[in-house]
């Protein structure tokens, strides 16, 4: 499970390079102005590569926070 968090953190660092790493775990589309639909697609593409799996964008549509993404990735 730590592996999921570590990889997800790496994806956040790439897609949101200006975000303070201490804020990754509480980050969400609601509290981040630059987390829009484009950033969501970038993030999901980066996650797909990092986890070496095909991401179904519709399945992850509601996963718009670090926490929700982590949960969704742990379930799969």
């Amino acid at each position, binding site marked *: 499970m730590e592996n999921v968090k570590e990889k997800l953190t790496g*994806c956040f660092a*790439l897609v949101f390079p200006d975000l303070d790493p201490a804020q990754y775990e509480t980050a969400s589309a609601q509290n981040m102005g630059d987390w829009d639909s*484009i950033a969501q697609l*970038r993030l999901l593409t980066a996650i797909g*590569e*990092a986890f070496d799996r095909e991401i179904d*964008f519709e399945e992850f549509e509601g996963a718009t926070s670090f926490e929700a993404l982590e949960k969704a990735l742990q379930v799969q």
Partner: protein
Amino acid sequence: MRFEEALRIVSRRTGGKTRTVHLFCGFVPLHLETFLKAHLALRFPEQNIALKTGLFGDLEGNISQAAAEGAEGSVVILEWSDLDQRLGFRTSSGWSAQTLSDIVLQVEEKLRRLEAGLILLASHLPLALAPPTIGLPPFSYLPPSQAGDSELQLNALLAGFLHRLASHEGVRIVSAALLAVTSPQSARHDTKMDLRAGFPYTVTHADALAELSARCLFPASPKKGLITDLDRTLWKGILGDAGVEGISWSLEGKSQAHALYQQVLASLAESGLLVAIASKNDPAFVEAALRRPDLLIDPARIFPIEAGWGPKSESVGRILAAWNIGADSVIFVDDSPMELAEVAEKYPGIECLRFPSEDPGAILDLLWQLRARFGRNEIREEDRLRLASLRASASLKEASATEAPADFLARLGAKVTFESAAGDPRAFELVNKTNQFNLNGIRYTEAEWKDLLRRPGAFVAMVSYQDRFGPLGRIAVLGGCMRNDLCYVDIWVMSCRAFSRQIEFQSLNWLFEKTQTSEIGFQFKPTDRNGPLQTFFAQCFSGNTPPEGEVVLAADSYKNICPALSHQVEDKWKM
């Protein structure tokens, strides 16, 4: 490149200047934007890359407005849906026979408007145009194995559009053939992403298209010379063993791949590439072999020919001296890994490529590599003159060894011509590729170059030269701007082919006279490679190379060091 790597690259910041490039397409650029930025960042590692994508959905409007915006170039990505939405996958307007006829008419009209906009844009900045990369939708009643009337008409319209645009300076069409190698048609369309988010490309296709577009817009400087081995390279067989008639390059001799190599060399030599031979062979045998009438490269285009039994690196050294260019501008081709290693050790900058004589497929790959290394956007008169002027320089060197330099130069019958270089693409090319006699080593983008020419008081002069050994063509550029009474020069380059003819002295004479100024300020910077310019400046500035910065040369002190010059001067330039 993986998407993760592209994100990593685009998040880097450098302290350098920012290069702004347009990316125009009819869809949300998404990953294409990321990959293009990453590939441009790799191409220009010391610069920050800014991509302007314009207003979403307004491809034509973005193209027409871009001409007025400051940028270094534009990448325009076309898809069929940009020519008519009904050719995309996100509309539901039907594909009846009547609709298809209308689509063809609309595409024709749209291409006409786009052509006008793209020509206008290309007159301001270079642009790379990628023709549609996603196939047409299944609109025809015909089986997919059969091309239908509408499809053929659309393809013909597109081909005509691309062909007309390709003839315009500044327009570069991204090669569909090369893209097909790196991104197969079947792996390009991400249908789900297209329907869901309006981005039509798979990640791999976005990467391939971005890479090729970046290379097409900003091609790497071509190499200048190729040194080739002979046995098992230019031809099949060992000349010393098989004899002149025993070597071959033909289908009959099962050596056609060598003929292809000769043809590529001949074609590149015609475009201005320098070709030389470095071979361990008896010189008399080599001479006889090169006289064979079926040779596919004209031996007159090969210079110098180094045949003998010494180390290849020594031959390469003599060739580089005759060409007067750096090893890093040259490729050495030989079938022997040992010879390649020996040359690479002596000249680490030279690119050594093995000729895989036993494998025709690998030879063809090598030929494509050579095309990539030596390919250029256009061929100028100077490219055709290059070899002749190098031969002339060699003759000049030989002749000058027997008498005093001043007497010799006086008998050359030399003529130096000055004319405006504004609008001459040769000036831009010379400034960006000359290393040795270069005032400061500054390279310019096309947009920066155009800005320089628009400065208040700007001037750029082109210098041409000819003497009894033949014309050298346009060999120097001298430019800057007038600042009140001071003439300020920040551009001064001269081709190495023109050294030892006192053209640099004549150029300054001309500039002092033309501007009637008492001083010329130079924006000088010593670099690792501009030794000849530094040597000349040491002569101008009391024996010492001045430090980096603006240095001022007074007309009075210049007169004291300028030798008596015997050139005839033709002044076609108006201040």
